């Protein structure tokens, strides 16, 4: 009895050691990034061969951060990314939940075919769509109000809308909302209808307030790819003032600046997301877990 207890605690100590090893491997590059962003290049390379590479010691300052803003319009890139992500998330939540509401809670004829067609889009990876989509958005008309005259020009390339509109509707968000709405009792709708509420009112005042977890999931799963997007803006954005952060850092890197400054820029666009992640850690991970089980 005593022996089995002993071996059990030994093995749990071993398990803990493996856990810590994995944690160190997961965290060291990011710690290295943030620590290096505070050091001048000479010290980064000097510290490389010792533990000092992971410790904010020596010649520490925020100079690299200042340099990032001096060299490129980094504030503009940040505002662009925040704006693009926010609009995509907000419109995505509204349009996809509205669609899922009608598909799951109303007796619309032909809704089964529509839902199947929407789910079918899930099998197409974005990489396959990207290149024909570039050609296609370049054919679309672009309306611009110039004073009192409406100007029509061709092509959406190099605009904000091309970074937002194609990503608002999302089959997976519709699917998530649909699943969630199915779990809300339909008697609530009936009661509201008898009280004279219209369908949009039921959506707005009955179903959506109950769908908080689904909304959180959709918000997270829309925000992350919008903030991290790279392939798409690489192809459709040329002007400096329209660049999102991920394209901005790529150009910044090509300016042959110091590594400390590159690490400062990288920290600048990573740390806010990491802080957000830690704050909403539970719903974040749960949403990924539920999104994974889509089969």
């Amino acid at each position: 009895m005593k022996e089995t207890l002993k071996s059990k605690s030994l093995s749990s100590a071993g398990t803990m050691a493996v856990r810590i090893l994995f944690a160190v491997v997961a965290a060291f590059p990011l710690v290295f990034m943030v620590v290096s962003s505070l050091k001048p290049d000479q010290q980064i390379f000097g510290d490389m061969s010792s533990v000092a590479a992971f410790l904010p010691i020596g010649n520490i300052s925020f100079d690299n951060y200042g340099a990032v803003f001096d060299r490129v319009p980094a504030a503009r890139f940040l505002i662009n990314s925040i704006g693009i992500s926010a609009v995509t998330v907000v419109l995505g939540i509204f349009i996809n939940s509205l669609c899922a509401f009608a598909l799951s809670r109303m007796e619309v004829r032909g809704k089964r075919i529509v839902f199947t067609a929407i789910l079918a889009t899930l099998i197409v990876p974005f990489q396959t769509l990207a290149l024909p989509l570039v050609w296609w958005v370049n054919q679309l008309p672009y309306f611009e109000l110039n004073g009192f005259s409406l100007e029509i020009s061709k092509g959406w390339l190099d605009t904000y809308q091309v970074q937002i509109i194609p990503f608002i509707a999302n089959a997976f968000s519709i699917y998530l909302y649909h699943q969630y709405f199915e779990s809300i009792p339909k008697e609530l709708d009936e009661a509201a209808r008898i009280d004279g509420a219209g369908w949009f009112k039921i959506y707005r005042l009955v179903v959506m307030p109950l769908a908080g977890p689904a909304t959180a999931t959709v918000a997270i799963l829309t925000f992350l790819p919008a903030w991290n997007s790279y392939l798409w803006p690489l192809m459709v954005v040329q002007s400096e003032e329209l660049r999102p952060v991920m394209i901005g850092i790529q150009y910044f890197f090509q300016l042959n600046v110091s590594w400390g400054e590159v690490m400062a820029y990288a920290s600048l666009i990573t740390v806010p997301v990491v802080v957000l992640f830690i704050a909403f850690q539970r719903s974040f991970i749960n949403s990924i877990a539920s999104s994974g089980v889509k089969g």
Partner: protein
Amino acid sequence: MTTTHLPPTPGRRVAAPAPAAPPSKPHRRPRYLREQFSGWAMIAPAAVLLLAFVFLPAILGFGLAFTNARLVSPRPVEFVGTDNFVRLFTDPTFWRALLNVSYFAVVVVPVQSGLALAMALLINKKFRGVNFFRTLYFLPVVTSMVVVSLLWLFMYRKDGLINEFLSAASFGLIDGPDWLNDPATSMPAIIILSIWQAAGFHMIIWLAGLQSISGELYEAAQLDGASRWHQFRYVTWPGLKHTRTLILVTITIQALGLFDQVSVMTQGGPLDSTTTIIFEAVRSGFKQQETSYASAISLVFFVLVLLISAVQRYLTREKD
């Protein structure tokens, strides 16, 4: 509890139990029509957007692959038959790209899913600090691949962190390679950082699978005196059947789509050792503006994705 009637607020009113149905028979017909109309009005915005930005480009991509379309061109688009595919299949760079992503997938699929499963098993039990470990393991996933690539580009330098570590750990015996500038080590370098970044994501999916296995099965196994290995072999592993298929399919498809890392770190080099299918598509479609040729590559990629998910589904289904 008072019995006085509260003024009904809109929110509260709907939550109340339904009163007896009022006589509403005569209004049935307009009500039905109105439901159809509102329903379609609610479906339309999302449906139109999906039609315009998923269905249409998908069909266009299929069509454009058989034409000579360019991104910006004064010439009208003409049908050229299978010219693009003939060119593609006789291009050694395409075959090299196919070989590279196969190499990438063959290593990444088992190693990454295995490590992710190990991580999930390590944090599946309740213990002090479980949230701390879960958060740390997941941290690389929320970091964008562009940032990860720049970070590792720096660590992979000849005098970078990785080589300094190898040298220190071997007491100066190992003199690390110039990872990204050597055709022999460039792909392994990309493989390592890719696994590092994405393992946490698949850990969460494994974890969801593990938690769906009933605890009673483990209790029964323990009563029968099953060892931990036997519990894993006869309870956990079969219980993860669906999760396994899902993870294999998602990792394989993600592996075939390899792009960001290559675009940031190596631009397909050195000597085409890291070029990939999507990288080739973007190079011809975006840099050389050959939409039609890029569409042909995308189409081949899509067929590959379909084929692999079909094969994996078939294999995992047949085993039972």
